[in-house]
């Protein structure tokens, strides 16, 4: 039996090693470059930019975490513990904000909240004609946009924790005479804590690596600064130093998330238990719950989506729907398809070996592939750029560079579905097939492949979508003639040509919608 696996795995082993190398090498290269930069440059950056950037990044992450905590936990509680008309609709609808890339929401909000924008007009109606709102291009603006965009992470994790929680704990507490509120505080919340913390860590990771929203809202974070350094300076030393800080920060939250997600497994008892009963609401409760959810979802999805549709059908926007626009569409589809296919091809040997021959080498290769989680877009671009110019300059400026950046960046999302897909089939099935006379290739084709196909498809779709929405790496690495939809949104929106950006943005949102179902049913962590 060993021979079967060995036959398959020795060439695979090489492939896996090469793939892991491909992924880890650029990261190492950038880090090495950062550490080899002259101390003078370090000193200068340390004295001027780094404290401000670290402070901005961390404080944005903290405030977004607090707001998503409130929004995510409260909405999850409403849809799991209350029963009211339309509950199931809201349960599904609350993930919709994930279909909206941060740069789209950011540009819509810079209009909505902007100087002389509709919300300010409303406010002036209430508070007098001289009243001013806060600017969306600020700490507060960035916080609101990022929180509205990411609270579904916390919502989803909390919701599943609430659904899977063994309700007997609460019942025991209530039976012992503890009040409902105190039970919530002392029993329910502590039980959900690991899930909530995991969700928050995910939100923070997302905020820390976001480029789209902060660039459009002009809020200086580390990720944005890396991009600015790359585009405004003739050498990449400062960019790589900032990247080093960024990667360390991201790593910190990735480890936190992993640790708490792992812990949350032990908090949930398996076996027989009753699902929690939902509290039937009367009409005041229904109105209250519906009102609350409408406000949140209205701000996070409905109003922005309405605006996008409206703008997309404006005359100016319609005029941009020419053959050039179709070119952007096909560029987006093409790049995303190649990146997704490449990601599956590279991820497959890694996941397969790690599940079949979990040696330290193979597991290490798999973990290396998760490096993408701590490589925000501009850093991934910088890493690939530095590597290619040093090692294979002939390929620099070709589409391959961009594809490699995508694969590195988004492979973790794909692996999240590839890994479980491969783990669920036992080697026995293949061995039976072999003992019944099928050769290695037929076994793979007729037994293994059909079993893992769905996992593959999900992985592919996830990577396709991520790539299609990707902004910073595309901006930095696109070859001539490879503008994508995301690029168009950003270019138009950053000059405040809101209508012109709308059709491309709307298309991105629409394409993301059906795939959101996949995300929710499988691996929404990757949105």
């Amino acid at each position, binding site marked *: 039996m060993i021979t079967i696996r060995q036959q398959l795995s020795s060439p695979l082993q090489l492939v896996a090693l090469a793939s892991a190398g491909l992924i880890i090498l650029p990261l190492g290269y950038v880090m090495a470059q950062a550490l080899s930069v002259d101390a003078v440059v370090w000193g*200068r*950056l340390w004295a*001027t*930019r780094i404290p*401000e950037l670290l402070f901005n990044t961390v404080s944005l992450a903290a405030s977004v975490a607090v707001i998503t905590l409130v929004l995510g936990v409260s909405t999850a509680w409403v849809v799991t513990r209350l029963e009211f008309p339309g509950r*199931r609709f809201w*349960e*599904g609808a609350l993930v919709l904000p994930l279909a909206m890339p941060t740069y789209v929401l950011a540009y819509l909000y810079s209009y909505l909240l902007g*100087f*002389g924008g509709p919300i300010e007009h409303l406010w002036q109606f209430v508070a007098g004609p001289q009243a001013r709102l806060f*600017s969306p*291009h*600020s700490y507060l603006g960035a916080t609101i946009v990022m929180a509205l965009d990411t609270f579904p992470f916390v919502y989803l994790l909390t919701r599943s924790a609430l659904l899977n929680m063994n309700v007997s704990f609460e019942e025991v507490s209530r039976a012992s005479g503890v009040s409902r509120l105190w039970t919530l505080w002392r029993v329910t919340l502590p039980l959900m804590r690991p899930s909530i913390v995991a969700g928050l860590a995910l939100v923070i990771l997302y905020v820390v690596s976001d480029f789209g929203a902060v660039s459009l809202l*002009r809020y*200086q974070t580390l990720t944005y600064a890396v991009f*600015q350094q*790359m*585009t*405004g*300076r*003739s050498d990449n030393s*400062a960019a790589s130093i900032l990247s080093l800080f960024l990667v360390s920060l991201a790593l910190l939250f990735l480890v936190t998330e992993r640790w708490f997600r792992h812990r949350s497994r032990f908090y949930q008892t398996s076996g027989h238990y009753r699902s929690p009963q939902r509290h039937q609401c009367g009409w005041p409760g229904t109105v209250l719950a519906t009102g609350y959810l409408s406000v949140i979802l209205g701000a996070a999805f409905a109003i922005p989506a309405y605006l996008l549709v409206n703008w997309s059908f404006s005359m100016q926007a319609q005029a941009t729907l020419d053959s050039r626009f179709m070119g952007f569409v*096909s560029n987006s*589809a*093409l790049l*995303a*398809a*190649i990146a997704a296919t490449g990601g599956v091809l590279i991820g497959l040997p890694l996941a397969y070996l790690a599940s079949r021959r979990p040696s330290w080498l193979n597991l290490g290769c798999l973990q290396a592939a998760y490096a993408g989680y701590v490589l925000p877009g501009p850093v991934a671009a910088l890493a690939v*750029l530095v590597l290619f*110019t040093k090692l294979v*300059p*002939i*390929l*620099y*400026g*070709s*589409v*391959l560079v961009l594809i490699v950046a995508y694969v590195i960046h988004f492979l973790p999302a794909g692996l999240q579905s590839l890994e479980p897909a491969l783990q669920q089939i036992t080697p026995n099935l293949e061995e039976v097939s072999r003992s019944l006379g099928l050769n290695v290739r037929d076994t793979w084709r007729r037994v293994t492949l059909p079993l893992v*196909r*769905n996992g593959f*498809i*999900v992985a*592919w*779709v996830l990577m*396709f979508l991520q790539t299609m929405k990707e902004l910073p790496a595309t*901006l*930095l690495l696109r*070859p*001539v*003639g490879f503008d994508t939809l995301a690029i168009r949104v950003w*270019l138009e929106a*950053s*000059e*405040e040509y809101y209508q012109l950006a709308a059709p491309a943005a709307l298309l991105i949102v629409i394409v993301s919608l*059906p795939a959101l*179902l*996949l995300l*929710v*049913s*499988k691996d929404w962590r990757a949105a």
Partner: protein
Amino acid sequence: MPYPCAASLAGRTVSLWLFVLTLVLLAGPDFLPSPTSAADKLIIYSGRAERLIKPVLDAFTAKTGIQVELLSSGTTELLNRLKAEGDRTPADIFITNDAGSLELARTAGLLRPLNMREIDRAIPQQYRAPDNSWVGLSGRFWIIVYNTTQVKPDQLRSLLDLADPKWKDKIAIPNSGSEYLQAGVSVIRATYGDERTKQFLVGLRDNGGNQVYQKSSQIVEAVAKGQVAIGIVNHYYVYRHLAMQPGAPIAVFMPDQQEGGMGSIMNVAGIGVIKQTKHLESAKLLVEFLVAQAGQKLFADLDKEYPLHSEVKADPALIERKSFRAAQVPLTRLAELREPTLTLIEQVGLR
């Protein structure tokens, strides 16, 4: 889970997959590192806003039938890219919003000297490299845009006065990566020295606060809306805004015209032909088109820049070119001034 499971989507996903695969196969050849299908096109790396340069290039295509492929990005970013691509670059033409960047490209050996009488005749010597490896196409001035309801022109004098605390939170400034800010600071340094420039930048940083913009059009927009009272931008963004919204309460103030002042800071947008170009004839045709009267008139009419061709008039809405002085720092010096300027900007901590 109340959501449809992945399996039910599998069918649809597979058809999507096949669709995309077909697309990939159809467009396959485009993907090779050396773009074969683009072989006949003139490839242009442009650091100018696409909105400003594309109409001009479209006019060129309409006239000559030569197709162009445009890669729009930041000037410095494209310069980095050209350096990294070296001999293998697919680019034929480099267009920038800043003479300093062109001079840097020249000193890096990226550009090809041009021996063309059309250039010598059309563009005055001070606006191009001595060997014509880059040629200025249009002039722009770094000016103060002010909101006419909030500011009277007699409150304004020199750019350096904008460091005064009275402008705190009333001024919008470009981000430190923008080449025209870097060029502007270089000119101020060359005129007044590092110490004075540093004071200016510190004041500007404090007064600007949050109002640091990536795009000049946004600065003009902010001033027009009254969000800030003044801003520093290139002049043509103001006139373009006024051309679209004639009633907007904004106006241009040409700074540093006072007795003994340095004069307004001028820069040019320009063009260079890449050394390795395989389309030299087409590239020369483009340069010829752009320096000729017809091309220069496009920059004047569409973009509201000052044409460099002496016989082409600027848009009448603009301040008469002869009525003000330009700072006396040669454009070619912008390149050597760049690096210490960046260090100074970084020391001050401009965003």
